[in-house]
């Protein structure tokens, strides 16, 4: 590895303490355990405070819509008595077009409060638009680092659009070719500018999503008399699952099932220059969803506030073709043109609703803005240009990077359960590896790992014993 990267990474801790205005060292308990609840509470904002900050920022209170036609469609092929009511929280109605405004509003609020002159975030997603928009409203400078192009300077239309919208809000956009060194460059820029790290994974940002879970619980109570049976969350880095689940729990919706959903991109390498433009999805996919759930502390902060395994009850995967089909169906049946990546949860929800009774309720907790480039037609036309086959057929034949198979009928949409036990096992393996060879987990570590994977200490202990023997 280059000396230049090493030199910057060696100063990572020091750079991040200054860039976040908080020292994570105070939460550490061992090479494995840290005090998650204390870290999440350290900013001192109550849920009511966050609601107020977001109200002033023009964020939140988005419409909750019942999707009656999609519900009728699902019931048309469900077994008798099955077919849950489907709802969606229209997060595209936020200022910069997605739920990421909730995250950004808190990061920018903290940056402004602490007196930073500007903010930096590394993201090719909607979060860049959200940070750029909130920074503009608060008179802060903003730099967004994006993995935007392959080595031929070709980019997915969805990402090109995200560069445009950040620049529209006055951000300096650093467009880069493929590679994890994006984070090294972000550190260099934080060091150079002294700006605030508006990380997706800080406790500020993730706390900002709790209002989304809280709004869903309250609005569903008002509308149906009870919190939803299930909330389906498009899952990538884990913040969406974590924040939404925490917000639901804070408002007493403890029985609501948290279902995370990602597009299956198995077989594609996230750091590959040639795979980069064959993904057809920019986020909400397993390429982020699995590694971040099984090793959250890979993030750009010392401890990731987004810890999806703590909160997910199920993890469903859907295919690329299924999501594009559902995106088209949403437009035509519900008059709701959104996505496409954000419709991953919608696709899983159609499958989930089919198996639930008619009196059950399923809430898809986000939509995202759509427009030129950021649109399922643009993504599919681009896929064809990149040599990916697009055809009708059985979505089970979908093969990421080589064939996008569009369902012929809605009955063919079937989400697949990802094995959570397997993910918990991977998580424990990654934690032990990071703790260093020979480190023996203490009872406190076991308790932490059980909480962090939403599982039983005995199961964790057995996993640890098995892995240490191997």
């Amino acid at each position, binding site marked *: *590895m*280059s000396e230049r*990267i090493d030199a910057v990474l060696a100063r990572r801790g020091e750079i991040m303490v200054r860039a976040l205005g908080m020292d994570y060292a105070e939460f550490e308990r061992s090479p494995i355990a840290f005090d998650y609840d204390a870290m999440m509470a350290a900013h001192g904002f109550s849920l009511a405070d966050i609601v107020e900050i977001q109200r002033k920022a023009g964020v939140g209170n988005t419409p909750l819509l019942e999707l*009656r*036609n999609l519900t*009728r*469609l699902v*019931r*048309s092929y*469900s077994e*008798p*008595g099955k*077919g849950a*009511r489907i709802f969606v929280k229209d997060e595209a109605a936020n200022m910069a077009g997605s739920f990421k405004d909730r995250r950004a509003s808190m990061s920018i609020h903290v940056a402004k409060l602490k007196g930073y002159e*500007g903010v930096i975030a590394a993201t090719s997603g909607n979060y860049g638009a959200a940070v750029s928009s909130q920074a503009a409203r608060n008179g802060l*400078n903003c*730099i967004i680092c994006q993995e*935007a*192009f392959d*080595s031929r*300077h070709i980019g997915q*239309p969805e990402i*090109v*659009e995200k560069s*445009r919208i950040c*620049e529209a809000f006055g*951000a*300096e*956009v*650093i*467009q*880069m*070719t*493929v*590679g*994890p*060194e994006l984070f090294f*460059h972000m550190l260099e820029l934080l060091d150079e*500018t002294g700006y605030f790290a508006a990380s997706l994974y800080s406790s500020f940002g993730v706390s900002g999503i709790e209002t989304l879970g809280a709004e869903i619980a309250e609005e569903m109570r008002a509308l149906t008399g009870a919190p939803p049976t299930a909330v389906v969350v498009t899952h990538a880095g884990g913040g969406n699952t974590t924040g939404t689940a925490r917000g639901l729990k804070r408002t007493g919706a403890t029985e609501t099932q948290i279902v995370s959903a990602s597009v299956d991109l198995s077989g594609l390498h996230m*750091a590959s*220059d040639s795979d980069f433009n064959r993904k057809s999805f920019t986020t909400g996919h397993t390429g982020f969803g699995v590694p971040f759930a099984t090793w959250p502390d890979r993030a750009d902060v010392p401890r990731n506030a987004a810890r999806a395994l703590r909160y997910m009850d199920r993890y469903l995967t859907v295919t690329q073709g299924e999501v*594009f*089909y559902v995106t*088209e*169906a949403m*437009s*035509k*049946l519900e008059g709701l043109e959104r996505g496409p990546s954000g419709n991953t949860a919608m696709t899983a929800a159609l499958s989930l609703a089919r198996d639930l009774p*008619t009196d059950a309720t399923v809430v898809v907790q986000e939509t995202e803005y759509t427009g*030129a*480039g950021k*649109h*399922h*037609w*643009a993504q*599919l*036309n681009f896929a064809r240009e990149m040599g990916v086959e*697009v055809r009708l057929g059985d979505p089970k034949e979908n093969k990421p990077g080589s064939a996008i198979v*569009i369902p012929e009928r*809605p009955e063919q949409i079937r989400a697949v359960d990802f094995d959570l036990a397997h993910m918990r096992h991977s998580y424990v393996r990654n934690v032990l590896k990071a703790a260093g060879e020979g480190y023996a987990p203490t009872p406190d570590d076991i308790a932490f790992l059980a909480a962090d994977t939403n599982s039983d200490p005995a199961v964790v202990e057995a996993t640890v014993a098995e892995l240490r023997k191997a």
Partner: protein
Amino acid sequence: MVSHDRCRIDDWVEVERVLLEPSERAANLPADTAGQPLLVWVKGYARAEAVLGEELTVKTMTGREVSGRLSAVNPGYFHTFGEPIPELVHVGRDLRRRLATVESGEGGEPR
């Protein structure tokens, strides 16, 4: 009229630079990525006149000075929706037709 092959001082332009040569890149990259330099494009206001490909310093929106080769003058956005997708054009018609044939009340109409 904007010239696209040369810029004047204060024009809105884009510069390209090599951030890391292949030999400087992170370890454990897939071969197709490791063999490529890591490139960066940044937009800003030109500090001097230049023609495409010439070294130039720009002042970005945050006031940083960044140098690189002039890669575009007044860079635009040309992404679009493109043509309808033949595999999707029937979805709306077929699903509306299907809902129209579902008898009212069958399977429990949503409230």
